[in-house]
């Protein structure tokens, strides 16, 4: 029974199809995967050492990253070592509340000044 071992020339399907078409392999002797591959081919056909597509990988950033990068967190608790159960970090709570307040402000279109947006005094960090 003929089989082609040239893995770089075509994928397994094209090679077996070639053999069947040429008559080197009988239809009854076709391998098990042939029908399954015909019905369910891979989403992208496998081509050996194909050129990589020129796509730029996007960098994932969120609105709160701007805040994370610029704000001074020296007086804000990052992690409380005394707590047995991991509680939500104060810093993360701050970011969450700020994110909620910014999105709310954007929704009502009442942004006003930047100080109003990031109103630290009125935020209650202990409330959860």
């Amino acid at each position: 029974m003929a089989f082609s071992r040239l893995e770089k020339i075509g994928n397994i399907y094209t090679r077996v199809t070639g053999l069947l078409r040429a008559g080197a392999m009988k239809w009854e002797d076709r391998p098990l995967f042939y029908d399954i591959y015909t019905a369910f081919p891979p989403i992208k056909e496998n081509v050996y050492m194909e050129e990589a597509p020129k796509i730029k990988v996007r960098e994932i950033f969120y609105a709160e990253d701007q805040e994370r990068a610029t704000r001074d967190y020296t007086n804000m608790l990052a992690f409380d070592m005394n707590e047995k159960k991991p509680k939500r970090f104060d810093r993360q709570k701050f970011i969450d509340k700020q994110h909620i307040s910014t999105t709310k402000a954007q929704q009502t279109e009442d942004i006003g000044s930047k100080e109003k947006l990031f109103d630290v005094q009125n935020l209650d960090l202990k409330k959860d």
Partner: protein
Amino acid sequence: MLLKGQGQGLLRIIANNMTKKNFSSATAPALEIEPKKDVEVPTKISRINPLTHPDYFGVGKMFTVRDLMEARVHFGHKDGSLNDRMKPYLFGSRLNHTIFNLDITAEHLKRALNVTAHTALQGGLILFFCRSSINAHTVEKTAKECGEFAHTRYWRGGTFTNSKIQFKAITRLPDLCIFLNTLNNVMLQHTAVRDAAKMNIPSIGIVDSNCSPDLITYLVPGNDDSPASIELYCSLFKEAILRGKAKRKELLQEIENMEKEQKDS
């Protein structure tokens, strides 16, 4: 090289009766095995060719994108080790850590699971590979539980290509290779990927961002290092194989009954 398993002939008879074999012309083969959409599985399963159904084994409902996220499938390696051909499968990179696009992964995983189930239905031999020492035991256990095979140790060069001499007998090679980890322990592509392609064996591979998607028939882009993700893949492949085998048993039973009825009448 490939020996036919028992019962495979019976399923082939059904498939042959429903597919046209037309190689007399020089054009591409006209095989009528295109899956139709919105086809209900009838109660008498031998009435339809399972390959015409878009999702005969209900593989699409076996997992959700949320399951993938919770198993940490979306985590890739860092930007520096990114293989350029894996770029289309990424959602992006978060502070130099590549993140996979789980919608794309889900699509690919469904296709891979479907193929696995159909291979099991036809009585195919499935071989699992995993060269990651943390996850090797999980993969071996999975293979044992679904009655298939696993090879998670050092891969000797001629195992596929020189099997007749190394095993000292004509060997039945697997009909499907599933790579839970496409790299070996020296971070090069596993030799069996190339050997499976050489020996016309389809391969399913979990391809991480630092792996090459070359020579793998059905790739599944995703994390291949976390034990959580490997456990998820193992459970899904095991479920697909068991469903395929169950349907096979049903189908063979039906064929037996049909033959009995024919004899009696």
